[in-house]
């Protein structure tokens, strides 16, 4: 057994360099100011204070609201789809889930790029509109385009998360509910839905997190002035060269995300507690 335990040591070493140190570096850069030299630096809270300006707070809020909208839409569309797939017979289920999964394997950049040709002023949709004699729609570089791109990229994750939980649901529970006299709606509301909440929660994690931090989708579909927090971080590091400010923004974004995840998990736990109380009471 000792031999086996020693297997962990090399990885611990590796992890501390490649996982822990980078995070420490981000914190370091966030709290210091300098050029990009490590030698000359001084501690400061300036980077964080800079973010306090209304503009940047607005960027953060915009990112959160877009991510939230995307998540909600994904749940609204994803839940029914996952539910109906779970109702199908086994052969169809495998086929349908495979059909949902295949797009996920296609590169996210390619999937986002595909919408440019569809939404732009001379794109497919507007070609159809002009063909029908209707005025063209201004779809590209709008909130709509960005949310559409996000839903398109992340919806499969939501569907899969919810489906995984629904598929494992014990059919006996549902039958028991019918036996006890509940109709379809009541069974759904009181048995299926509550039991599927873990799936929704993990789906939210898989959608909200990337939606808040992505920069490719707003860049392709939103234009250069569509700045979400991911874009802000990217420009600070790649174009502007302000690694300190960029690190501070990353820390702020990471904290906000952790907070939202924490709240979501608490919500999940609260639900469970309430349920177990109901069962006892």
């Amino acid at each position, binding site marked *: 057994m000792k031999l086996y335990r020693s297997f962990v040591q090399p990885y611990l070493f590796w992890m501390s360099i490649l996982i822990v140190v980078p995070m420490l570096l981000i914190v370091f850069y966030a709290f210091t100011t300098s050029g990009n030299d490590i030698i000359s630096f001084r501690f400061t809270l300036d980077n964080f204070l800079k973010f306090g300006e209304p503009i940047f707070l607005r960027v953060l809020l915009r990112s959160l609201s877009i991510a939230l909208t995307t998540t909600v839409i994904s749940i609204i569309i994803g839940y029914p789809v996952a539910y109906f797939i779970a109702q199908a017979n086994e052969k169809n289920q495998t086929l349908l889930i495979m059909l949902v999964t295949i797009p996920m394997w296609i590169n996210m950049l390619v999937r986002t790029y595909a919408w440019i040709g569809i939404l732009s002023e001379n794109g497919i949709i507007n070609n159809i509109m002009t063909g029908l004699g209707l005025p063209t729609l201004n779809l590209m570089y709008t909130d709509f385009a960005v949310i559409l791109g996000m839903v398109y990229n992340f919806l499969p994750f939501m569907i899969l998360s919810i489906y995984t939980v629904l598929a494992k649901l014990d059919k006996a529970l549902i039958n028991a509910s019918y036996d006890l006299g509940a109709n379809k709606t009541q069974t759904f509301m009181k048995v299926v839905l509550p039991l599927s909440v873990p799936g929704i929660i993990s789906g939210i994690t898989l959608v909200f997190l990337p939606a808040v931090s992505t920069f490719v989708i707003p860049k392709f579909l939103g234009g250069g*002035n569509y700045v979400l927090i991911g874009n802000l971080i990217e420009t600070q590091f*790649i174009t502007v*060269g302000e690694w300190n400010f960029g690190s501070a923004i990353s820390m702020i974004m990471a904290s906000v995300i952790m907070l939202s995840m924490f709240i979501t998990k608490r919500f999940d736990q609260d639900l469970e507690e309430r349920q177990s109380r109901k069962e006892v009471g």
Partner: protein
Amino acid sequence: MKKIIGLLLMTLLVAGGLSACSPKETLHVFSWGVYIDEDLIREFENEHNVRVIYDEFASNEEMYTRLLSGEQYDVLVPSDYTIERLVQENLLQRLDLSKIPNRSNLIPQLVGLPHDPQGQYSMPYFWGNVGLVYNMNKVSVDDLEAQGWEILRNPTYAGRVYFYDSERDAFMIALKALGYSVNTTNEAEIQEAYEWLLQMDATMNVVYVTDEIIDSMIAGNKDIAVMYSGDAVYVQIENEEMGYYVPEQGSNTWVDAMVIPSNARNVDLAHKWINFMLSHEAALANTIEVAYTTPIQSVFDEVTAEGGDYADYLDSYVPRLDNPLDEAFRYNNEIKKLLSDLYTLVKAQ
């Protein structure tokens, strides 16, 4: 277990072998996107039996940040004001002019410009100015002549304007519209320019793009676009409805030039590349492919002459040299930081 280890070793050996299998010298060039006739790269590689790694950037700022983050390059192609900055910060090395005989082909007005007065650090690659590409059927020339850059804030055209996503050019336009110098260090004037941009951003529903602007204007997606003269030439060739206008309020005349960073590894090869780009054949191929204005006199004469490739596009291909309000950008460290921050704010609206 043995199989896994064996497989691992084999792969590492192969990978190691593959990477060791390039005993050729490599030349690392960092330049703008779509800025060269790619056949020239292959020609250079074959002639000197070397490998060229051709990397692209989208803005001077990105190039600078990448350079400073420790990346190693042999040839860079920055714009004039960035060359000034690199020289000030001792990041470039002096060129060995004896290795660049083709520099005698250069248009005389492009040598000895403020960013490189003795022509020791840079060799021009393309040049041009900044102007407005407009749909001749949808935008009135009277408006253009009367308003100049202010047309970008004319509500008649709201939602139909593309703006080039560049902090320098954004402030250039605002400052020129207000009648100030693009190189002003007067913070009040810069603040006014900032507000000019904010107002434009708030009322005109402007879209900020970089190279996407070219194909979009060819497709006629919008009616007015701020573009570099070279891109304007290309758009005009592909879309006959497009015209090019440079406001009388003044614009920026720019030069992109080839330089060699201090930490370049293949200095001799870098000189060969630069000399090659200045040759008549290479410069001709480049200007035909990219449509930007060539700095080589003989090529310039050839393509602008009667029957030349760009004879019909002289208004965009030939930057005017007679308007005293046209300026070149100069580099100033503090102002650059101020502009950077303000521009981030403008875009974040």
